[in-house]
C-alpha cells in the first residue's frame, strides 16, 4: 500500500501492465522524455525504451488512427490525447473506426486500445483545456467509457481497460490529478467495467455522479446534513443502472451531477432511465446539476460554470422539499 495521487496511481498501473505485457505501448504528444504535460507517463520512456513510449507528431487523428492499426496488428496501444479539447480531430477515427471495427468485421478484426484523456475543468487552464465531452462517446456504440474519481479506482479501472478486448476511453479528471492522496495497493487489481461504487449510503435521496464532481457531491452532502446515498458511476458505458435503480427505489429521490452542459449530457439519459425503471417509486422529479448550455468560460469564470457544493446543496434541498 502506498499513499498515491491519481497521477501516481495511473503511472503505477501503466508500469505494472507494461512489465507484464509487452504488447502494451504508449504513444502521444510529449509522453516520452517529458512524461506528458501532466507527468502521468513520467519515467516510462526511460524504463521501457523509446520503442514502447513514443512521442508522435502533433496530430490527434494520426495518433488514434495509427493506434487502431497497432491494435489490429496485435498490440495493446495506449494513446494519450493531451486534453479532452483535442479529441476533436480524432473524433472520426474513434467513432468511424475504433468503435466499429469489431462489428463491421463481425468479430474478424478487433481494436483493443485504451485512449487516455485528461478531462474537465477547475485548473485555471486555457480554452479547450477544461471540457467534459463524455456524453459524445457514450452515445457512440462500440466504445467503453470510464472515468474514475479517486486514485484507487483509477488504478483498478485503468488495468481493466488495458486488458479489455475492446476500445476504451479512459477519462482522467485533471482537477483531482493531485488534489488528494489515497491508499493504493501495490498489487495489481482490476475493478470491473460497468460497476458503480456506492460512496456513502443514505436513505433520503440518491446522488449520481462521476469524475471530479464526486468530490463536490461529498462536500454538498456534508453541508446538507441529510442522509444521502452517493453513487459514483465509475464507468459510463456500460453503466450500472442496477445500482442506480436499487438506490433510487430505496430513496425515491435523485439528483444527478456532472460538469458537461446540461442539454444532451449523460445526466439526461440517467434521468430518463430512472423514470423508466423507478417511475412508481419516484417522489420528486430527478434533478440535474450540470454545466450550463454555454461554452465553458475561460478561467476567470470557470467556477461560475462548474457545479459546486452550493448548487448541489440547493438541488438537494429542492428535491427533498418537493
Amino acid at each position, binding site marked *: 500500500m502506498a499513499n498515491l495521487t491519481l497521477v501516481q496511481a495511473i503511472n503505477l498501473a501503466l508500469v505494472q501492465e507494461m512489465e507484464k505485457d509487452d504488447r502494451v505501448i504508449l504513444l502521444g504528444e510529449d509522453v516520452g522524455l517529458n512524461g506528458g504535460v501532466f507527468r502521468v507517463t513520467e519515467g516510462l520512456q526511460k524504463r521501457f525504451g523509446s520503442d514502447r513510449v513514443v512521442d508522435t507528431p502533433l496530430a490527434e487523428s494520426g495518433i488514434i488512427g495509427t493506434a487502431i492499426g497497432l491494435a489490429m*496488428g496485435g498490440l495493446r496501444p495506449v494513446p494519450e490525447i493531451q486534453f479532452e479539447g483535442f479529441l476533436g480531430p480524432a473524433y472520426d477515427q474513434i467513432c*468511424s473506426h475504433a468503435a466499429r471495427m*469489431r462489428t463491421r468485421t*463481425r468479430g474478424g478484426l478487433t481494436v483493443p486500445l485504451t485512449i487516455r484523456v485528461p478531462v474537465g475543468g477547475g485548473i485555471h487552464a486555457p480554452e479547450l483545456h477544461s471540457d467534459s465531452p463524455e456524453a459524445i462517446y457514450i452515445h457512440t456504440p462500440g466504445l467503453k467509457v470510464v472515468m474514475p474519481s479517486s486514485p484507487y479506482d483509477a488504478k483498478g479501472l485503468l488495468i481493466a481497460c488495458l486488458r479489455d478486448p475492446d476500445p476504451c476511453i479512459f477519462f482522467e479528471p485533471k482537477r483531482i490529478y493531485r488534489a488528494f492522496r489515497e491508499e493504493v495497493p501495490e498489487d495489481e487489481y482490476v475493478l470491473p467495467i460497468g460497476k458503480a461504487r456506492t460512496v456513502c449510503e443514505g436513505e433520503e435521496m440518491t446522488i449520481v455522479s462521476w469524475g471530479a464532481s464526486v468530490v463536490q457531491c461529498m462536500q454538498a452532502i456534508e453541508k446538507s446534513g441529510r442522509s444521502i446515498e452517493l453513487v459514483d458511476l465509475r464507468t459510463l458505458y456500460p453503466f450500472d443502472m442496477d445500482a442506480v435503480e436499487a438506490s433510487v427505489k430505496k430513496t425515491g429521490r435523485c439528483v444527478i451531477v456532472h460538469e458537461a452542459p446540461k442539454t444532451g449530457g449523460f445526466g439526461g439519459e440517467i434521468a430518463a432511465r430512472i423514470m423508466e425503471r423507478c417511475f412508481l*417509486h419516484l*417522489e420528486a422529479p430527478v434533478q440535474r446539476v450540470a454545466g450550463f448550455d454555454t461554452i465553458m468560460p475561460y478561467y476567470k469564470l470557470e467556477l461560475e460554470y462548474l457545479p459546486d457544493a452550493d448548487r448541489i446543496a440547493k438541488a438537494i434541498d429542492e428535491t427533498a422539499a418537493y
Partner: protein
Amino acid sequence: MPITTALSTEIKRVSILDEHGQFDESLGKDLIPDADLVGLYEDMALCRKLDEVAFKLQRSGRMGTYPQNMGQEANSLGAAYVLNQDDWLVTCYRENCGLFHRGLPPEKILLHWMGDERGNHIDPNLCVTPIAVPIGTQMLHATGLAWASKYRGEKRVACTFFGDGATSEGDFHEAMNFAANLDIPVIFFCQNNHWAISVPGRIQCSAPTVAQRAIAYGMDTVQCDGNDIFAVVHCMKEATAHAREHGRPYFIEGVTYRLGDHTTADDARRYRDEEEVELWRQRDPIIRIREYMKARGIWDDSKEAALAEKVEAETSAIVQRAEGIEAPDTSDFFTSMFAEMPADLELQMRTRRTSSIGENPSQIASPETATG
C-alpha cells in the same frame, strides 16, 4: 550568400509497356515470367467480368450501390503480385483485382455491397483489411499495422491503396507524416484515376503530379503508368525492397482512369466528356497486356474464348455463393458489438420487438409497489 539552395529534388515517371505496345526491354525483361503474365491477365479478366455482373445485379435490384474497378485493375494486381502473402494489404474499394489475387473469396466483396457485414469477415491469414468506406482514413491503419510488425521485429510491410480524392483528406497527410518521421515501412499507393465522383483531379491536386505530395515528407516517390502492369510491378519491387530493407515508407502514384461511373448510383455523363473516356479506353490495361501477349505469341483467340467461358462460369458461381448465403439473423448486429455483450444491450436485443417499457418488466409487473 543571401540566397542558397535549401533543397533540390526530382521525381521519375516509369512506363514499360506503353499504350502503343512499345515494350522497354531494359526494365521489362524478366520482370514477369510468361506463365505469371498469363495468370495476371486471367485475374484481370475475372475482375472485369465481375464488375459487369455486379452492375447488372445492382440494376436488377439484387445488390446495392457498387463501385466498378474497370480500367484500374493493374494497380492493385501488380501490387499484390509483388507483395508477400503476409504483407498487409489495406485497400479502399477499387482494389478487387489485387484482393482476389491475394486470395480473398470474391463473394466477400459482393456481400459487402449487398449490405452484409459478413462480407468483411476475412480470414486473418489473408492479411487484408475490409473495404474502407470513409475516404482517406485507412492509410493510418496501414501505418499502424506496419508499425506493429516493425515493433515485433518482423520484416513485413503494409501497402495501402487510395484514390486521388483521398489525398485531400487530413488523414492522408497524417499517415504519410507518421510513416516518414517514425520510420514505418508502408507503401502508399495512390490510384490517380483523375476523378473523385464528379470532381476532377485538379481540384484535389493542381500540382503537376500527385507523386510530389511525398516530397513534403522527404519520402521516396515515383509516378508510374498505372495501366501498365509491368511498370506497376517494377515500382512495387523497388518500393517493397526499399521498405523492407530500410524500414522506410514509399509513395507510388499509379496514373490510371476510372472507365465506369463512380458507382452504380452515379452517372458520369453528367460531368465528363465522352472523348476523355474514349481516350482512356485505348489505354485499358487489359487490352494492353492482351495485345502484348498475342504479339509475343503466348496468347491467342482460342485461349481468349476459353478464358471467357471460364470467367463466365466462375462469376456465376461467385454470385451464387454470395446470394446463397443464409439470411443474417435479425439480431446479428448486436452480437459483435463487444467481446462480451453488456447486460443492457442484451436486454435491448432480447426485447427489441416485444417490449419498450418492458425493458424493466418488474416495473410493470408490480404497480402495487408504487410509492410515488
